[in-house]
């Protein structure tokens, strides 16, 4: 029998100068999304503009529905997804909050929606700079939440999000958080994979027995009270028990098909090998952090940075294992959680919780709140926070939560 030579990674990727939001739109096109709903709010709207352009140019074939508000926007895709359509939508800030009723039911109904959250400060005051409180507001409801750092990661993550969300062991939504401005409005050179590669990676959406169809008569979301609710919740809880393994598996396959090295899907360590202290943060904070780490390393300080990608599911065990190696940890929150333990941000509280039950060492965890409303987080800010963490590592008393970059 004749052998057929199989060339690995033979596909030629195109390079495009696009924003992170546009990169997600390109991923939607490659994923052959069936239904897109849109309602404008900055900075999310850059993705809906680009998708509408792709549709108008005949490059993408989908139902593009401009809803009359975010509530309908998220309801429409929820129903379309239940009927077997691959869907996409998204929002920002208070737009995301206006859709809250639909956001709560989406995981409960096992809808594998992919949404883009262009992170934006919640009104009031009116502001369109980045804060993470919008996406974090659904953190307890069964949404998978990921923060990304580059336009390339936007595109790659959107493809991964469909694969992960639609895995039959999951069937729950994924929200991709993109920091407003830095990702949504900056054009970077992005490698766009070929349609063949995406086909190989992403199987067609198949809801199986959950499909609402005349040939598969089911009723979705009945009224049921105390004798049913707990069991239904437990079924979604079971998804979260499996989620870390499914995500790991999908990333491994992503690396195989697309010839990209992601490494640990859940968090990215930068110069941590021999670090005494590290900072942890999500999203584009990583850019000034990495530059500052290089600068401080050049000055002889043993410091590093850990960028958390997946906030839900929270990679508690792996992260605790990683962070317990260091003498002290600083968590940089681009969010607030008023009245929380030690008045820290959301991520600091989660990391303290992740570290607590382990038997390993428990280094001090300092919380920093900064960059709210899009305030710049600059290299000197990172150096300042690192300095506080180094003081804590040396046994000095340092406040558990501090505001950085505030006029005071």
């Amino acid at each position, binding site marked *: 029998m004749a052998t057929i030579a199989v060339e690995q990674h033979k596909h030629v990727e195109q390079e495009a*100068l696009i*924003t992170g939001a546009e990169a997600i739109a390109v991923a939607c096109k490659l994923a052959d999304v069936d239904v897109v709903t849109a309602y404008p709010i900055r*900075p999310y709207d850059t993705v809906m503009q680009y998708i509408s352009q792709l549709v108008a140019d005949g490059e993408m074939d989908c139902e593009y529905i401009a809803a009359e508000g975010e509530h309908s926007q998220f309801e429409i895709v929820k129903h379309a997804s239940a009927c077997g359509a691959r869907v996409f939508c998204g929002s920002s800030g208070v737009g995301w909050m206006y859709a809250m009723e639909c956001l709560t039911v989406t995981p409960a109904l096992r809808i594998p929606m992919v949404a883009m959250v262009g992170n934006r400060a919640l009104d*009031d*005051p009116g502001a*369109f*700079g980045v804060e993470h409180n919008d996406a974090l507001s659904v953190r307890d409801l069964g949404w998978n939440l990921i923060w990304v750092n580059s336009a390339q990661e936007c595109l790659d993550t959107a493809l991964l999000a469909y694969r992960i969300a639609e895995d039959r062991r999951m069937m729950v939504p994924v929200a991709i958080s993109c920091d*407003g*401005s*830095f990702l949504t*409005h*900056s*054009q*970077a*050179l992005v490698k766009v994979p070929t349609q063949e590669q995406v086909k190989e990676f992403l199987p067609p959406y198949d809801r199986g027995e959950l499909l609402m169809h005349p040939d598969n008569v089911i009723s979705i979301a009945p009224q049921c009270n105390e004798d049913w609710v707990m069991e239904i919740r437990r079924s979604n809880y079971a998804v979260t028990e499996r989620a870390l393994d499914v995500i790991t598996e999908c990333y491994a396959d992503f690396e195989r098909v697309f010839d990209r090295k992601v490494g640990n899907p859940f968090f990215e360590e930068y110069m941590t090998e021999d670090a005494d202290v590290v900072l942890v943060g999500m999203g584009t904070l990583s*850019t*000034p952090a*990495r*530059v*500052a780490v*290089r600068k401080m390393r050049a000055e002889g300080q043993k410091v590093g940075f850990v960028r958390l990608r997946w906030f839900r599911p929270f990679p508690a065990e792996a992260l605790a294992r990683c962070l317990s190696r260091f003498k002290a940890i600083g968590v940089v929150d681009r969010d607030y959680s008023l009245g929380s333990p030690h008045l820290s941000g959301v991520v600091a509280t989660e990391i303290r919780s992740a570290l607590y039950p382990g038997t390993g060492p428990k280094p001090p965890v300092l919380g920093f709140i900064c960059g709210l409303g*899009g305030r*710049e987080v*600059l*290299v000197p800010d990172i150096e300042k926070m690192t300095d506080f963490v180094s003081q804590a590592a040396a046994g000095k008393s340092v406040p558990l939560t501090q505001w950085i970059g*505030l*006029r*005071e």
Partner: protein
Amino acid sequence: MGQLFAVEIIYRGVFQKTLAKNICRGIVLSAHNEGKPGLSFGRYSDSPERNGIPAKSYAIVATDDETLEAGMAQYSPKQFDITVVLDDTLCKGLESWAWMGLQPVNHFLKSNATLAVISNAHPDTLLKFIHFHDKPYRLGTFSGIPSFSGMWNFKDDHTDVRVLGVIAKAMPELFSWTSLKKYIAAKVKDGAAKVGSAKLAYERFDTVEVKVGEGNTEPLRQYVRPKWEGMREGTTVVGMAHGGPMKDPVTGEAGGYRPVRSDTFLKFTSRTLRPVINFETCTKCTLCWLNCPDAAFDVTPDGLYDADLQACCGCGVCEQICPVSNCITMVSEHQFTDNSSEWVAFKKDKAAYKTWVAAKSAVAVPLDQRSNGYRYKGQYKEQISAALEVANKG
């Protein structure tokens, strides 16, 4: 660390937004032809959808990825190798959402960097408007029109490639003419013809040296932002005080009404045209005062309506609503070096004012021929041919 290049494009909100974006894309892609990584982006805290408001787009390019990352570790660059101004009336300074106070166009220029302005005026004329700078720099103009287009349109009059030609001339280390030519030919619609336009701009662009302190010496407004404890609780801000009567500069008579206006956001840098008012033909009908979207008109003691030129953003509604044909005329900002009151000048010397109004109105483009966007079918084609003529003449 390698070398980092930063380019700033200053443009007029919405009319030139796509133009500015296309220029920044062209910078990154031309430099990428030489293997350099880059990034292009708009100043996010601007609100570039507002008519005429000064806004900025940036391109940063580096010789390696780590240097580029260092350039990205901030909201926007703080030092530029070249600043391009797409409309020369912006030379009076920028007051945008992203900046409190008046920001000179040369504010972020490095020492000996280039300020390139699309203008038919001589650099010396522009230096009447451009504020002094604490570093020496090079100023060059290249002929053209501001290429204003409507909300979602792009006026494809070759201005984008001409700007790129100017940048290649001023900063060959960012990208060479060969790299630019390759980009235009491969990636730009109608590339073959546009290479010619870009080449003319590349060949003809020249600069003069501007010394430290040279230019408009008008002092710049300074503001102090309050600390958090100095701000009111509940996301509240104190409202404006009520206004009061005006005073006649000659007789001292008090009357009329002048509202108190914001002294932190003045709005006049959004303006490319200003109303020149012939007070002698005014019928005191009140329409300009009632219809001004910015409440920029003061009621004078003698019942006239005087535009406060700090508060006027030059929208031209007053001219359009005025029932008298020769009363309000919108005239290019080039004609003026300050924002002083027209009514005060009128009261002080009516004969001189009459001559002044006639001279200023004479250079105005008639209303039916003037447009920021497109007002009638076919106007685009007409304007493109006029623009290309300017482009090809160099």
